[in-house]
């Protein structure tokens, strides 16, 4: 079977959807030459009416896409830097997201926002290393964080077809992942349906995005002593609460690993919901970035702020020991 890389999966999803639906168009900086590779070949294939290189003008082109959506198109915007989402939070959270409700259901805003390279990119320093997915889940914007090439393809296809705004975070830590795949079997992945990557009976590790791979490595390390179930929510909003509840029925113990800041992060929401509503036989634990973290430049400082396998392993062992 051919190997498919995560980035190629994103590229394939956009191309397939542009082929399938004339209304799909792409906006972004340097999408013509595809500096991120996610849009490679699309300009040549679909032309400048559907693949638009924009000026460095994020706030305007984000709402420009909203207007195009109100007029019937299905734009995808690529942002090269995750912190740009802070700049366009008004255009996504306060404009695009609110149109359906505020108009009493008169319209829809089917725009996809793609972040190929969110989170730390090996010392890109303070303004290029954020992972602001929890902000979007908080305001109720549909938010996907795929971990594997097949899910990157499937979730991006679903996001493009969805009638609401959807932000797709492609963590830089996952971009290099490759997968043996039957390309013909690539399929849309629904929003709000998690995936169990590894079955276990002692503890459920909920891992977001690229941390799924770390969780799988830790589970393998602990195999024989602890049976770890690895649950990948795939979308943070909507979240697969029933899938998580089913997993906790089996394990009763919960550890969340999440590469965003601790306070008010998605990890806190997962722990709170499990504590309120699900079966827990031990206190749940979280591994996250520190409160209010800004990633420092020097590599050892950058890494010191990100969740590590050692932290995750320790949290799993504590969770099991406390049971």
């Amino acid at each position, binding site marked *: 079977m051919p190997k498919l890389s995560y980035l190629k999966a994103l590229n394939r999803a956009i191309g397939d959807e542009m082929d399938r639906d004339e209304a799909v168009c792409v906006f972004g900086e340097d999408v013509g030459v595809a500096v991120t590779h996610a849009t490679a070949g699309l300009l040549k294939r679909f032309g400048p009416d559907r693949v638009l290189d924009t000026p460095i003008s994020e706030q305007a082109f*984000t709402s420009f896409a909203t207007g195009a959506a109100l007029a019937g198109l299905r734009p995808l915007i690529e942002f090269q830097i995750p912190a740009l989402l802070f700049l366009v939070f008004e255009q996504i959270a306060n404009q695009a997201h609110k149109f359906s409700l505020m*108009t009493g259901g008169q319209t829809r805003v089917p725009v996809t926002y793609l972040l190929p390279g969110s989170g730390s990119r090996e010392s890109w320093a303070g303004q290029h290393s954020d992972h602001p997915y929890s902000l979007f889940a908080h305001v109720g914007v549909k938010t996907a964080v795929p971990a594997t090439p097949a899910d990157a393809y499937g979730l991006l296809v679903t996001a493009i077809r969805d009638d609401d705004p959807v932000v797709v975070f492609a963590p830089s830590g996952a971009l290099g992942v490759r997968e043996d795949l039957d390309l013909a079997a690539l399929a849309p992945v629904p929003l709000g349906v998690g995936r169990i990557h590894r079955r276990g009976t002692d503890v459920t590790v909920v891992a977001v995005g690229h941390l799924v791979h770390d969780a799988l490595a830790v589970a393998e390390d602990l195999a024989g002593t602890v049976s770890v179930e690895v649950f990948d929510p795939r979308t943070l909003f909507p979240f697969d609460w029933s899938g998580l509840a089913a997993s906790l029925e089996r394990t009763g113990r919960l550890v969340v690993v999440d590469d965003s800041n601790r306070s008010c992060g998605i990890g806190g929401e997962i722990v709170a919901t499990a504590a309120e509503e699900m079966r827990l036989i031990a206190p749940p634990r979280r591994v996250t970035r520190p409160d209010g973290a800004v990633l420092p430049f020097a590599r050892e400082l950058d890494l010191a702020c990100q969740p590590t396998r050692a932290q995750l392993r320790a949290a799993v062992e504590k969770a099991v020991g406390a049971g």
Partner: protein
Amino acid sequence: MTDRTAGADRTTAPAPTADPAAALYRTVALVRGFEQRAVELVRAKVVLGGIHPYTGQEAIAAGTCAALRPDDVITSTHRGHGHVLAKGADPARTMAELAGRATGLNRGRGGSMHAADFGVGVLGANAVVGAAVPIAAGAAWAFRRAGSDRVALSYFGDGAVSQGVVLEAFNLAALWRVPLVLVCENNGFATSMRTEDTVAGSILGRAAAFGIPARTVDGTDPEAVRDATAEAVARARSGAGPTLLECTAYRFDAHHTWEHTARPRYRTDAEVAAGRARDPLEVQGARLPAATRAAIDAEVAQLLDRAVRFARESPHPDPAGALDHLYATGLRARAGAR
């Protein structure tokens, strides 16, 4: 539960006013009367949250919309009732929206600052100053891409020309020659701040920087506004790109009805009186025979009586449906308490 769709509730047919001068007057009179009734309903606490009255600026809405086709679209501001009505929304359903009723344009989900009627090309009033300008530009681009000659027109105030996103939108619209008409309503004040205290350089100069043709129009004269808009619309339809019209007028009333009780002082009574002296209603009314004007006034008054009655008598929305329409896909997310 979902509110009943109010589309069939239109209580009035648009009056056939064949004479263009009379038609313009009717729109000005309709908007003026609507705003006066709305202020009364704010005082009566039927309209909560207050409104941003449009009195004094009616010629801009009337003149611009007279130059548009029904299939053209507009984006509006937090001071948007005039635009929404001039584009053809039903006054009764617009008033019901201000009153938060299930029969309102937005089923009571938008209110004064978000009134929208996609059926007549109103892509929504917008409560963030300047925010709708790039939205209109994107819609205009989509029209051109679809091979149609529809245009978009975006209203914004003099306060908005200091918003970065507006100037970014000027750049995109000019760069890509989108069929867009930019209408800056310069009513002299950004809330309490005088235009000269908030705008460095000039409003026309903003457009010049992007190579966008621009001119100042007397925004108290509906015919002047209409004629200038018609030229800008023709330019947009021909593929030549955006035009900026700075329409000058004087805001007769408060920035927001909250001022009726708080009474902040930022202009003198003499100045307001001088501003009110140039009244668009009188400018256009003077162009009609007295009998025509009286007949229109009577018809509009009757229409607004019905609109107010419709708004007052319409049902309030069911709280169980508070988050209906939150997602176009119908997604129902978790409740806040259980």
